[in-house]
């Protein structure tokens, strides 16, 4: 396969694989560019994977990491780029700008251009991308089939804390909208993961007494608590037990490559095949 960087220059080559990777430029200031991995032999009806990068904005790395296995399964991978000059804070999804609308517009464009079919997508996010992804799935579960969120720095919990920490706040605010969507969200397949060595406080993480008390002090603890909170939320509401898994990726710290090597790609794609 060949990776084409945004400026159009080939970046690396690998052994021939049954897919093509290409950069799709953003349309307009509000639009998102993205890497697209298309299998040479698409599987009819296969659910595309929308993979959202962390704040290092390594969209091309995500596309490359998922490319081979996704192509083998006949699936398309979309890895949008939230360019820093326009999309600081994208991981919070709805503020300061509407990353959710940008993602939905991108998906619609891709559907109209025949890159992906109609219907839901599988959604993956790593670190800041996991923040964005889980909030997107909580707000728009009707767009998502399965969610794989790895190593989010912090989460929106299905509790009464004010949004974005929880679903509380104004009666017609984002938290309330997510609360209304919670039963649908809890019907999704949800895979939560985190590196086993990502178990200590990190200066890059949001930390304060309130959030630490709610979520814990490390990504590992926060992921574990969020998983438990989903299960508890379903039970409290009398809903069926959610199909949520929690996986600790052995030997991996806060490093996407290490997490991928420790089974994240298989966890994200394999169980979704």
């Amino acid at each position: 396969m060949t990776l084409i960087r945004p400026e159009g220059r080939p970046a690396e080559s690998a052994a021939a694989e049954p897919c093509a990777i290409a950069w799709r430029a953003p349309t307009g200031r509000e639009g998102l560019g993205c890497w697209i991995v298309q299998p040479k032999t698409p599987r009819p009806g296969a659910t595309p994977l929308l993979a959202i990068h962390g704040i290092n904005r390594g969209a091309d790395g995500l596309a490359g990491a998922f490319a081979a296995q996704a192509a083998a399964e006949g699936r398309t991978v979309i890895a949008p780029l939230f360019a820093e000059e326009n999309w600081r804070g994208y991981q919070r999804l709805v503020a300061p700008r509407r990353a959710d609308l940008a993602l939905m517009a991108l998906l619609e464009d891709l559907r109209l251009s025949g890159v992906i079919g109609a219907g839901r997508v599988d959604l993956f996010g790593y670190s800041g991308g996991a923040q964005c992804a889980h909030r997107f799935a909580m707000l728009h579960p009707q767009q998502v089939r399965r969610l794989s969120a790895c190593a989010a720095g912090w989460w929106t919990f299905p509790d009464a804390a004010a949004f974005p920490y929880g679903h509380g706040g104004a009666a017609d605010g984002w938290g309330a909208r997510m609360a209304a969507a919670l039963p649908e969200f809890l019907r999704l397949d949800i895979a939560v993961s985190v590196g086993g060595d990502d178990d200590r406080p990190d200066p890059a993480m949001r930390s304060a007494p309130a959030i630490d008390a709610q979520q814990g002090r490390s990504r590992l603890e926060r992921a574990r608590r969020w998983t438990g909170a989903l299960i508890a939320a379903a039970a409290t509401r009398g809903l069926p037990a959610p199909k949520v898994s929690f996986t600790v990726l052995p030997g991996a710290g806060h490093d996407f490559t290490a997490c991928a090597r420790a089974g994240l790609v298989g966890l994200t794609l394999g169980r979704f095949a």
Partner: protein
Amino acid sequence: MDASTTLTASFALSLADAAKWAFTTRRVDHAAVHGLSVAFDTARTGDLVLGRVERIGSHKNIQLVCGRPSALYPGDAVVLACGARYAADQFEGVAEIDPDGADMLAGGGVLGRLREKNGRMAAPTRIIPLGLLTGADGRALNLDRFALPRALRPRGLPVIGLIGAGMNSGKTDAAASLAHGLMRAGLRVAAIKGTGTGAFGDVNAYADAGAHVTLDFTDAGMASTYREPLPRVVAGLDTLLAEAAARDCDVAVVEIADGVLQRETAALLADPTARSAFDGFLYACPDALSAVGGVAALAPHGVRPQALTGLISRAPLALTEAEAATGLRVISREALRDPAAAMAVLRAATAPLAAAA
């Protein structure tokens, strides 16, 4: 068949072929026209009337089947549907055809007899009826012959109703905006005008908003729902919902015409069978007092709107008064166009269904 009848039929076919066919007749197969009858005393609502424009009045255009308005000129041949109209801002009239001249009650193509008009309105455009279009059997052709087949109300299709304080309270704008928001959220949306007078403005607005399926009561064979028996109006609504479900829609947004005190609208909201078609309602109104009055008028029917919307959302002071007085929040059309907000409206309406699923 004598010579004069043959001549009349031939003339009718030629003239009808050249006429401007109004929006209300959009489902009619022109090949079904075989002749003309002047038995105007037998005309009933929905019958197709061929006429000539005698005098231009309030309606200077006719809404064509193709979806554009056409300027009217004296002498124009037109085909409209006999029907009644209730429009507080315009005309009230009944489905009767006077051989000496009938009234164009609606630009969408409703011909009848004017009874009342708003003081700001000019006299209606006058149409000289040439005859009722007839079929091969000699009987008047009626819209119901070309309607969707009657169908039972579908199960499992979420339905959000748009009701309002009256004409021009913002219902259509709100319905179109909600349809747009739901469409952007990824749903396949039907937008339906459930009651009212045949006109293309509403369905065009729904189509412009991106609704995948647009329907109105003319698809159920009615030129107007005014003075129609409630069972027929409800059967028509059920048929339209069934059509939406058959065309794979995920949700239907249904606008109910006029205000909640209007006869057919009030009857529909008071009827448990009709009301049960809806999972929730938004109430459009222009000011705080109409918000309070509407909420009070709906309460005896067990209807409490999910939220207020419409013109009031553009008036911050009125909005604040209405929210305080009713305990309901106001949703603007801009908010309804947002997929997250639109889905929140849908989810609030269907929450009991979701809990039971």
